[in-house]
């Protein structure tokens, strides 16, 4: 069974928007008004300060993907929308968790964090705060494994994604819905 949020119901849209006040509210309001479900959402400016990128994982049980994309596209500050299928994109997410780790169990937790290439970012008397970045499924696995120790608090960011680099000659084969994004300044 695929991990929560990675099944066929869920699609990742990366939405390039104008970096202006209220744009996130417009996107959120559209989803709410049309009865579309957001599974996760991450937003931050891009390297071009005129634009921000919103990465939305949508649940297409509530509406066909085609409708969601076309309605999003009608928002004036939405510049471009690209669907990123998991098979041809790099998806990452960040997880922070405070885990119960009494002195006798601390070693096991640290070892587990090491296996997952995470980091310990805070240490308390009987707990640790750990950080882990990775593919959403990897985070799911980690979450399952540390649950037994006792999760005190856990926060995930929601996923961000970029298209997988195409090593063939044709670079335009990304699954771009709507229109192509404007050329962003080279970082």
């Amino acid at each position: 069974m695929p991990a929560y949020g990675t099944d066929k119901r869920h699609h990742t849209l990366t939405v390039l928007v104008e970096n202006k006040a209220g744009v996130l509210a417009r996107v959120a309001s559209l989803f709410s008004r049309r009865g579309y479900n957001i599974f996760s959402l991450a937003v931050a400016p891009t390297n071009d300060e005129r634009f921000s990128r919103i990465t939305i994982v949508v649940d297409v049980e509530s509406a066909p993907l085609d409708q969601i994309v076309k309605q999003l596209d009608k928002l004036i500050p939405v510049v471009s929308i690209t669907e990123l299928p998991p098979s041809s994109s790099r998806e990452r997410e960040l997880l922070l968790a405070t885990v119960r780790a009494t002195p006798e169990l601390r070693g096991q937790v640290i070892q587990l964090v090491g296996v997952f290439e995470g980091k310990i970012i805070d240490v308390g008397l009987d707990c640790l705060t750990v950080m882990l970045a990775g593919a959403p499924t990897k985070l799911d696995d980690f979450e399952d494994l540390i649950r037994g120790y006792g999760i005190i608090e856990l926060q995930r960011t929601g996923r961000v994604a970029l298209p997988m680099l195409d090593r063939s000659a044709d670079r335009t084969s990304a699954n771009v819905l709507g229109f192509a994004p404007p050329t962003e300044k080279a970082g």
Partner: protein
Amino acid sequence: MELTGAQALIKSLEMQQVEVMFGLPGGAILPVYDPIIDSSIRHILVRHEQGAGHMAEGYAQVTGRPGVAIVTSGPGATNIVTPLADAYMDSIPLVVVTGQVATSSIGSDAFQESDITGITMGITKHNWLITDAGDIPRVVAEAFHVATTGRPGPVLIDVPKDVAQSAMEWYWPQPSDLDLPGYRPVTEGDPALIRQAAELILAAERPVLYAGGGILKARASEGLRELAERTGIPVVTTLMARGSFPDSHPLCLGMPGMHGNYTAVTAMQRSDLLIALGSRFDDRVTGRVDAFAPEAKVVHVDIDPAEHHKVRRADVAIAGDCRSVIDDLLGALDALGLPHADTTRGGRGGSPSDAVEGAPAVAGSVADSLPRHRLSPWRATLSDWQTRFPLVYDPADTSGGLKPQMVLETLRDATPDDTIVASGVGQHQMFASQWWQFDYPYTWVNSGGLGTMGFAVPAAIGAKVGRPDRTVWAVDGDGCFQMTAQELVTASAERIPVKIAILNNAYLGMVRQWQEMFYGERYSEVYLSPDLPDYVGWAEAMGCVGIRVESPDEVAPAIDKANAVDDRPVVIDFRTDAAEKVFPMVAAGSSNDQIVVDPSQAKEIR
């Protein structure tokens, strides 16, 4: 040249060739009202901001130009929310300017503060909160561009008081200066898809052209007519498209939908090809969607790609402007060998009653076109339905008051053919759409999608301002009239001679009809009284001529009297029969196959 933000705003509206705006001042918009004194733009002072919005809509619908309204912050802004929602549903280009509290006060719950950009986010095509006076010309240019291009719609510009008062250096933006990187509306359809549509059209045996409001928005009436005449395909015109194809034309089937005529509704149900042109498969047209036109393939032309497959999956979905796509479609039909029809055109000839009740006499030019042989059985079927199921009422039965249909027929016949008719929402609206003969585009102004009671009076005023050369009648209900009648004060003060026919049945008639049919005649809160208010006295108090009509023989003289008045509004209080119901009717949630016709025709149904 240094201007204040307020001066720049008014100058920007002048640069957009705005000739009239509808509004009402207040605290936060005060600075913007000062330069209006010196402006070439006519300002019409309304009595309620909702009136300003509907007037701007009426103006926009008859002129094709964006309607402009200007109001203050807080309650002024929230009062115009209904017209914005209305314009959004019916794709009417509107530019609404609202005052806002000073930028330093935004978010502090200041006096008359409301988050109008937040409130109207879902009911405008876009909105802007201006924070720098230097942005004003660019934002105004962007606002008009967004409102009028692509699928038209309302936009809102929120102007804080301090922005209006601060200085800026005047400029007027070039098109390239507009900052709209995410706005690229489509106009032309994909030629390959258009060819596929043409092939479907030539292969169809029971095709129907399903014309929607997009025909009018795209100014595509001529193209629609050419398409219909060359292919011989009959046309239904939705509530938003009345007048886009002449009702007197032999190929016109009239209005489909919940209260459409039997032939229009059933033609769509039995069709094997629906060619949807600027229509959106509204629930009032489709009835129960899964039972709608079960055998039909669908060609769907819409400038808004989000309409494609939203309700009904299209076999060929063409994103583009209706006028351009119809032209290209005619070209594609040429290429596939569809001959040109004789230039003598049918239509315009029939008497008004023929179009409504009579069988369509197929004009020679239409019959000579290529799909004639294949389509003749279809047209014969439609013609049979038109003969068996005309719109009917019993004019002899006047025991319960005037028949609303009789009032409308008399009004229709006593007014010029290009009269503009505005209506509110309810029974009177459906009767008007059914019984009027719309032979010219842009003569029908109504609230289709949102169904806004109270639309008629202000919309008629706006329409008359936009087309002072035309006779403008509002057909209103007594319930609707009471919602916005105060704008007749505006009309009197501004010498805008609109005419209002109230079909006064003393009820919220459509709700009463549903309670009678679906709630076992349990009438809950629908009685309004015919005499409270006294409509004649009220009309006169507002500076109008007021006339009451109670008997059938007074109807025509009263209308003639109203038509003779051209220096002030006229209100006629027609006392109509409360028991009269709108038929045919497809009950909400039912299939269009379950159409309920007038009881006198029920035996005709298979």
